[in-house]
């Protein structure tokens, strides 16, 4: 079985984020890392491998698209236990929207070939759109089995528990398919020292757009199908009133405040 797990290199969410003059995100100013939500995807891929009847016959390939530094995301996946990695790195891809990103990812999956499972996280921690897994399923014409909090499989039959707003569902399909998992799917493992050492010897390929047969004109900022027109920093909230509770004074003050705002 071949599993491709998509991992994104994202800016550290805790850092102060800003925009460039062309209204793209200033990536240079902020350190990057493997998106936390994609760690769950790597974890589930490794668990599928470990639970397979013949784990040695299961290959987990970590795939990422990004600038040269994005290799760190692939390396982290290798350290966790992925078998090999691919980084698609090409300046022309910078500024791509989700349509462009999914196009490149789909082409990379096809080039990797004979893929049984494409595994993704539930959203990126920067864009937060949650649409790439569905777009991948659409482009690759594979069933989408997405937003799984529990993953079970037998042979090529996969099932997930999907916690929707209206109902909890069990979704099932036959591989090959696109699978996405949420942060409820099980804690992601820390790379062990052995894993970190072993990762250094694992195959890691670098591909450009030309290797994928994707035309530069189809991706990147200029090909994007939506455009940011303006960004505005929200005025920082003016400091509010803080009281210390003493013998019920806190509740009284809070109620007075709520009444003044007409909530009661």
């Amino acid at each position, binding site marked *: 079985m071949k599993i491709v797990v998509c991992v994104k290199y994202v800016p550290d969410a805790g850092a102060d984020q800003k925009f460039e003059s062309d209204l793209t995100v200033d990536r240079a100013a902020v350190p990057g890392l493997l998106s936390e939500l994609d760690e769950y995807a790597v974890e589930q891929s490794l668990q599928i491998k470990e639970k397979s009847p013949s784990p040695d016959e299961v290959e987990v390939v970590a795939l990422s698209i990004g600038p040269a530094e994005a290799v760190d995301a692939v390396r982290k996946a290798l350290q966790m236990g992925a078998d090999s990695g691919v980084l698609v790195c090409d300046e022309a891809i910078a500024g791509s929207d989700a349509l462009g990103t999914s196009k490149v990812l789909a082409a990379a999956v096809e080039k990797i070939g004979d893929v049984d499972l494409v595994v993704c996280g539930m959203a990126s921690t920067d864009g937060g759109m949650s649409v790439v897994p569905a777009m991948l399923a659409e*482009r690759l014409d594979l069933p989408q089995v997405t937003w799984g909090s529990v993953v079970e499989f037998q042979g090529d039959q996969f099932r997930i528990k999907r916690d929707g707003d209206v*109902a909890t569902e069990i979704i099932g399909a036959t591989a090959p398919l696109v699978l996405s998992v949420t942060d409820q799917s099980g804690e992601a493992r820390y790379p062990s020292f052995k894993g970190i050492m072993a990762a250094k010897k694992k195959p890691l390929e670098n591909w450009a757009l030309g290797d994928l047969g994707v035309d530069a004109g189809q991706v990147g900022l200029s090909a994007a199908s939506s455009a940011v027109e303006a960004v505005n920093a929200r005025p920082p909230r003016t400091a509010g*009133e803080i009281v210390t509770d003493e013998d019920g004074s806190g509740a009284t003050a809070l109620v007075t405040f709520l009444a003044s705002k007409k909530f009661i």
Partner: protein
Amino acid sequence: MSEVLVLVDHADGAVKKPTLELLTIARRLGEPSAVFIGSPAQGDAVAETVKKYGAEKVYVVDDADIKGYLVAPKAEALQQIASAAGPAAILISSNAEGKEIAGRLAVKLESGLITDAVDVQAGPVTTQSVFAGSYTVQAKVTQGTPIITVKPNAATPEEAVGAGAVTPFGANVSDSAKKAQIVASQPRESSGRPELTEAAIVVSGGRGTGGNFGPIEGLADALGAAVGASRAAVDSGWLPHTYQVGQTGKVVSPQLYIAAGISGAIQHRAGMQTSKTIVAVNKDSEAPIFELVDFGVVGDLHTVLPATTEQVIARKG
């Protein structure tokens, strides 16, 4: 005037409030056409509801053949309606399923997609809240038919009389769209409280509750509010994940957000930072949440909240 498609968000034919918000927004952009994918027997009742908010047409797609399959068939049906109607825009509720339908539709129609809009004005120009609410972004789709997913509470539903003409639409769903089966479905039990992302007031509890959400629920019920939880509370198993407010849970923007026993980590703030009024109750005066509040009480939620609840009930008489 061009049609604007609005995908009706419903639970077994009961139209959800965000759909009324989408119809109101759709009126700014063109003539709203609701798209109801469900049982035709409920089509007339749905039309009655949506036409009160401006729907001129109500496409009814019989879901008998497709309701057992995840997302893909709905995207195909919408694509076919869009190809026939040539709408000025397509509006879908921003929830997990809505975004997936929108994503697939964007690929099918080779059209731009903007998700999680908190406002949409004529253009269409969308407003999004990014970087945990510290920036707002104005954007437009530049290719194809704008597909926009809209967060709940983006607009106040405005009543406006529409013709609501029921228009059955026979969608031709491919076999390929029917490969992800919904094998089983357990409806969520209604809590009797407002839905978290739609509520005007939210009372949330965190680690400080120690697992006892009684004070939270008491205050929520006194205020007619929804109950929410921090990730810590959910990870501790005190409440299911559907209650989680935060980056990996629900992002809410109610009129009033009360955070009790929640420290205010970035992950949580990303889920509530744009609430109009923010209140916190926490024993720790250094808790980061106090940087966000319009009003804060440093104190034990186990005494402050019940005392507050008592006074709220007394005032309401």
